[in-house]
């Protein structure tokens, strides 16, 4: 919200903060994350490359200030090309594969969530669109530069050589991969966030609310109380 403190925090901190804010900031009793600080992209450093593609802003229909809350619909069209969607799907399952806890990202429709997200006519999502479409192009550029083909057409081992250079927080500090690492961080947030907000992901993470409990709220289970007692006993 306030542009004045942007310079004091790095992008990673602001993302972490935003992530945690979605669970803690309460205004008027409503959980909000409306004041995400804007974090402008850094300049492209020497020895690095970034497509810097620009796009016509999306001006499509918004849902407005009085949408049907009981039967939500999304009024804007999705905009990813089939090729882009394929790449997003491939990356989604690299980020969020099937495991013992639950299915893969594509199994719960995460690429559609991302397509809806970056096609939305709101400012935050439009910023994410520029970042993600450039990031997808960067992957192809980098794959061509290193291995002479687009990302989807190089070997899995080659793909992971690239991913391993951009998938970690620390790589935002590496000039060569700074922009790509910022892209990957955003994509990961959307993929894992999209997954854990899906019905299957909500079950996976163990969210047990949103069911009516008639009578008094029962509070923590015995197991949860026992765990808390241990935590309290071990406080610093």
């Amino acid at each position: 919200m306030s542009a004045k403190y942007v310079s004091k925090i790095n992008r990673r901190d602001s993302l972490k903060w935003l992530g945690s804010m979605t669970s803690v900031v309460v205004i008027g009793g409503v959980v909000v994350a409306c004041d995400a600080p804007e974090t402008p992209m850094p300049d492209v450093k020497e020895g690095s490359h970034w497509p810097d593609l620009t796009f016509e802003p999306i001006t499509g229909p918004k849902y407005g200030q009085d949408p049907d809350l009981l039967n939500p619909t999304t009024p804007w069209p999705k905009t990813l090309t089939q090729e882009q969607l394929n790449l997003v799907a491939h990356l989604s399952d690299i980020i969020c594969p099937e495991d013992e806890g639950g299915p893969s990202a594509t199994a719960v429709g995460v690429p559609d969530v991302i397509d809806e997200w970056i096609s939305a006519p709101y400012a935050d999502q439009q910023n994410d669109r520029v970042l993600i479409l450039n990031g997808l192009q960067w992957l192809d550029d980098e794959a061509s530069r290193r291995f002479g083909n687009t990302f989807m057409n190089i070997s899995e081992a080659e793909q992971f050589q690239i991913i391993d250079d951009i998938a970690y927080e620390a790589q935002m500090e590496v000039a060569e991969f700074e922009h790509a690492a910022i892209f990957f961080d955003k994509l990961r947030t959307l993929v894992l966030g999209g997954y854990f907000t899906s019905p299957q992901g909500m079950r996976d993470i163990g969210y047990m609310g949103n069911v009516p409990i008639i009578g008094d709220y029962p509070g923590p289970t015995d197991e949860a109380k026992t765990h808390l007692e241990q935590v309290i006993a071990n406080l610093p």
Partner: protein
Amino acid sequence: MATYDGFEYDVVIVGSGAGGGMSAHILTEAGIRVLMLEAGRDYDPVEETPMFNENHEAPLRGVSTSDKDFGYYDATVDGGWTVPGEPYTTGEGTEFLWWRARMLGGRTNHFGRYVPRFNDRDFKPFSHDGLGVDWPLDYEEVQPWYDKCEKLVGVSGNNPGIYDVPDSGEGVLQPHAQPRVYELLVEAACQKLGLPIVPMRRAVLTRAIDTREACFNATHCGRGCSIGAAFQTTTSVIPWAKDTGNLKVVTDAMVKEVHLDDNGRASGVTFVNRKTREDVRVDAGIVILAASACETARLMLNSKSERFPNGIANSSGQVGRNLMDSTGADISGHIPALRGRPRYNEDGLAGNHLYIPWWDYEGQDNGSVNFKRGYHLEIGGGFGEPEIGLGSYADGYGVAAKQMVRDYYGSNIGFALRGEMVVNDNCYCEIDPDVKDKWGIPVLKFHWKWSDEELNQVAHGLEWGEKLINAMGGYVTSPKRTPEEAILAGGQIIHEVGTTRMGDDPATSVTNKWGQTWDVDNLYIMDGGIFASNPHKNCTITILTLAMKNSTRLASQIKGEAS
């Protein structure tokens, strides 16, 4: 008696939120006929509340956008920080946000249902520290009305015996909800640090009363409540008032002017019918303004006459002045010991079951803290419904990244400071001479500047927030900020009050202690504008209580006149 659309009435009420709704209830119960004008559309929580809808059903997983500032499912209709075609402006250097809802019930449909009452000191701040002004009321006078109002609203909580949290009368409060694990951990930290922590008074029923059901421990109150468990005027006082047959509600009626007759009394109002864009003039024997502090001030400033060239009932020049909000600042942290903790349902009453009330009155008196007014800390955390931001907990990719999110879920705890600001001359609203809204009504221009009182208070709160996080073995994850950076914008806590303040002196106040304007004896104000100060305690319950008290007196006066 005046007549509108075949309905005979004595009183016009402008606004249907906390003040207007309560006033309509009290007056109509007393047999007085009321015409209520609401700028927004009709709204029925029974039909419209998205109970149980999940984030994945909403566009963008329900995140906030410029259309729905508090997320897709927030109850607010046709409003938020902006209302299309109805701008407001700000003076140079001012950062101010004005939340408006254009709907029956106003902002009561989405508020947090945190309802702490004031204590004796809250009514006499000037006497204690020499800043601002005292109220023309004391706690003893208001206390029985708090009891009556809490009983009617339905408040869950307890009497912890803490000065900042005065006792409610016997049998007033309903049982409070049991705390959750993260609240109990904060409680343990408070015990280590010597801070109090008590059940939050909530306008959320834990026992059914009248037509309203007890909370079934699911669905956030900010969406509204179709079963009436979370208080809002649209499931309580307004339907009750309608049931008497003495209330007519006109929605889409944006009032633009209060009229004055030749005897200096209010004679009625003109509203814009938002559907036909026509001006409609209605008469009234008594006019009650309850449009919200700033909207009421705007209406009064725009109601100019020969007698009141600066706005109706504004001989003091105080209309629009003394604008106050609560201070707000947030700090959040990660608690490693909570990673991967056992799952269970933490929805409860949504929002706080426990909070940290203000504790250091002594420090304020002996000068060991460098600010004069207190704050409280609201607690955030828990196993909330997963939101897309959860994805940011991870690093890397693959099963390990997925597992990080699972581990971090429910392991962050945050504190939201809500504090009292001291009234100051730099915070006010006035009519912008150059800008009109789409109805042709001149708009408000806001001016805002925090003083050291608020900045020192925020610094103190952030310091204690960090101590609490550390005492739980955690570390702060929100960015390190100065108080100037951390304090939220004026208006952002949505506790605006003071713009038509009450007092003992007509030269420095707009109304007497009954909300009756000094200048126009049949013009009353029943919203937060009449507050003489803005204690850190969320304002809605006091707006409701004073509207109840003042409307009861008004009803007996009207009945007395009639008999």
